[in-house]
């Protein structure tokens, strides 16, 4: 009787594992989530930073503009997203991701890259980061990436039964860029929507500043990341355009941000491309993040400046 029970139990467990793996595989073959594509290939070059870079820098435009420099044997991947703060976790993942020694690395920075929850020491910030997506995923280069789905995918697997992103204004490209279009076949994000979302972003910033503080741990790992990336290719620091209200907010809380970043860039002999003062030339969909057309125009401008730097550098 015990033997029969154990056999039945084993059958149930095996069936469970088989059904689970079947649906994990099914999900992996379709749309998983907006970040999944960032974890499915090795990279020669990277776009790093938070959500502004995630939606605002298009690898397509940069590849097109800089193709003559031969940086892209392995692809340029947009590896920026809202949980990617500087720290040991992000640093180690970047190391796993890069597979060549001749890449370009665009690091998008804003004060937000350097904050951590208040009251945490270095060890606790590390533990905090480990609980986020980057800390949960061991494999960042496989396609399909089952490791990502099993450890970091937080939604139910029934999503594998359809192949849709729930927010149909977003296109998640294979190279990790999440393009946000104001218009799709069904509706348009109006200026009124944008104004409302901007007010929510400002509110979010105001709430966040109460709970977070600037962290020397993140600052130190920012330097460490630059030093490492310099051994793997050319590094560019950039501050992206955003709505002036938000930039004002950031500058109020870190008045010498641009000066300090410029100093770090000089110290490491890398350029700091600051576009924050040209924010009026670009449009965001929520005050912080560039919509598709602005993202393309901005990336083109960024690529042109990188090209100029590289031409001067090679001379």
């Amino acid at each position: 009787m015990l033997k029969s029970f154990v056999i039945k139990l084993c059958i149930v467990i095996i069936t469970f594992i088989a059904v689970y793996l079947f649906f994990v595989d099914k999900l992996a073959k379709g749309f998983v989530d907006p970040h999944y594509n960032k974890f499915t290939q090795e990279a020669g070059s990277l776009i790093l930073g938070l959500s502004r870079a995630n939606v605002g820098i298009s690898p397509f435009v940069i590849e097109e503009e800089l193709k003559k420099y031969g940086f892209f044997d392995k692809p340029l991947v947009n590896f920026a997203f809202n949980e990617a703060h500087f720290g040991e976790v992000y640093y180690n993942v970047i190391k796993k991701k890069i597979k060549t020694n001749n890449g370009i690395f665009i690091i998008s920075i804003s004060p937000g890259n350097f904050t951590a929850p208040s009251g945490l020491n270095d060890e606790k910030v590390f533990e905090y980061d480990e609980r986020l997506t980057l800390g949960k995923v061991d494999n960042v280069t496989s396609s399909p990436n089952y490791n990502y789905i099993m450890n970091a995918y937080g939604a139910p697997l029934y999503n594998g039964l359809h192949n849709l992103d729930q927010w149909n204004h977003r296109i998640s490209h294979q190279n990790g860029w999440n393009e946000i279009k104001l218009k799709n076949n069904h509706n348009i994000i109006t200026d009124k929507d944008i104004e409302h979302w901007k007010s929510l972003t400002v509110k979010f910033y105001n709430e966040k500043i109460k709970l977070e503080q600037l962290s020397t741990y993140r600052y130190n790992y920012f330097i460490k990341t630059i030093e490492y990336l310099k051994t793997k290719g050319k590094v560019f620091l950039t501050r992206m355009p955003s709505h002036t209200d938000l930039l004002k907010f950031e500058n109020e809380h870190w008045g010498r941000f641009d000066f300090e970043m410029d100093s770090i860039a000089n110290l490491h002999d890398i350029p700091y491309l600051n576009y924050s003062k040209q924010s009026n030339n670009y449009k965001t969909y929520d005050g912080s993040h560039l919509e598709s057309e602005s993202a393309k125009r901005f990336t083109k401008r960024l690529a042109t400046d990188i090209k100029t730097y590289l031409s001067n550098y090679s001379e």
Partner: protein
Amino acid sequence: MLFNSFEFLLFLPIMIIGFYVLSHKYRWLWLLLGSYYFYMAHEPELIILLIVSTLVDYYCGIKMYEAKKKSIKKSFLALSIVTNVGILFVFKYLFFFTTNIEWILDFFGTELLNEQEVDSYNFNNILLPIGISFYTFQTMSYSIEIYRGVIKPERHIGKFALYVSFFPQLVAGPVERASRLLPQLKTNIKIDINNLKQGIIIMAWGFFLKLVVADRLGIYVDEAFRNPESPHSLSLVLGSVFFCFQIYYDFSAYTSIALGTAKTMGYDLIQNFNQPIFATSIAEFWKRWHISFTQWLRDFIYRPLVKNSRMPRLIAVSIVFFVNGLWHGANWTFVVWSLLNALLLVIEIATKPIRYSIFDMLKLSKKLRELLGWFTGICLIILTLVFFRSPNISHAMLYLKNMLFFNSSLHINILNNYFELFLCVFLILVVQAIYYYKGNSKVYELFTERTKLAKYSMCLAYILIIVLFAINRQNSFIYFQF
């Protein structure tokens, strides 16, 4: 170690196999080592508190039993209580206590500590040991029952340590009495397929409740409580209703997994719930909710206050609910939540004759009275739970204000995923229907009283539901924080 973690899925079979392979003589040691490992998987250094609590209560228990004079008995009881309450105070309430003292002194313009001193006494960094409120209350019940002569002390220190730390109920209860659990731990349990089957089914139910229902509701609850100033009242109403079910299912899930785990090894733990959602009054709700703990409060605080100290019931009820609130967490929100329940209870008792005379006048049937009682009771419980879920009182007040002053917007502006929203409501109805017909203690019968074909179909359906609909976030159980 979380019940809903991969580590636990490996740990449990090893514990069960080891338990049945070993002879009865060594099982206590196996379970004790396993329980300590289970506890240490979270914060290893905090095991010392569990051991201190165990040793002090073991010693006090024997000394109390052996003492001839009542005064000596009393002093050992005091030692036990002071140790346990002291551990609780330092590790759970010290920061809360000091900030409140500081606030009061600030209010009167006195500075207790300067800024440098405040930094050096940073009580906020004290780690809250997991399960501390559960095991300290459990061991205190042991000491008090020996003092009262209800039970004899356990002489075997290993078995006593196991009673304090038995891993299925260590971190979030049920709060077991020594008179129930210790005799079971001493019994030589033979392997029984029915125990294994029943245990696995009860656990499976718990996993379903946690992964598919409670964590799904939690997504909406988190979103609603993140925006208490939302202009969409209906979203806030939904958030608070869902929270009532989330906390019930989350805690009930933990209890089911605890009960199921213990059952696989032949042990029966106390049922912690008896369909609280169907309670037809506030008083009844508290008799059906977190039973092991409410019985603890009744036996060790309420009754002594009323019987021995002859305290008026109203004050005794307030004290009990104050302790209940504080037990849940070092935050005034829990105290307010609990005291509001006390207030409702008192009003309910005080207005009983008037309500009954109105019912009689209106000639309402018993069913209709119960329905009315259920509806008002559950609405009030849901309202008070807003304090439980909010991070502070002002947040709760803002939430309630925006929820109750209905605006014209009937738009449910949470996450805009209507399929998931529908699924949440559907799952609540399904779970409540099952609880209505089977009760909390007989859910396993759903899988056992069937033909073979029905059993296999249900098993496959269960697998599909868990795989497809579980929320894979490894959220810890809400009651872990207490």
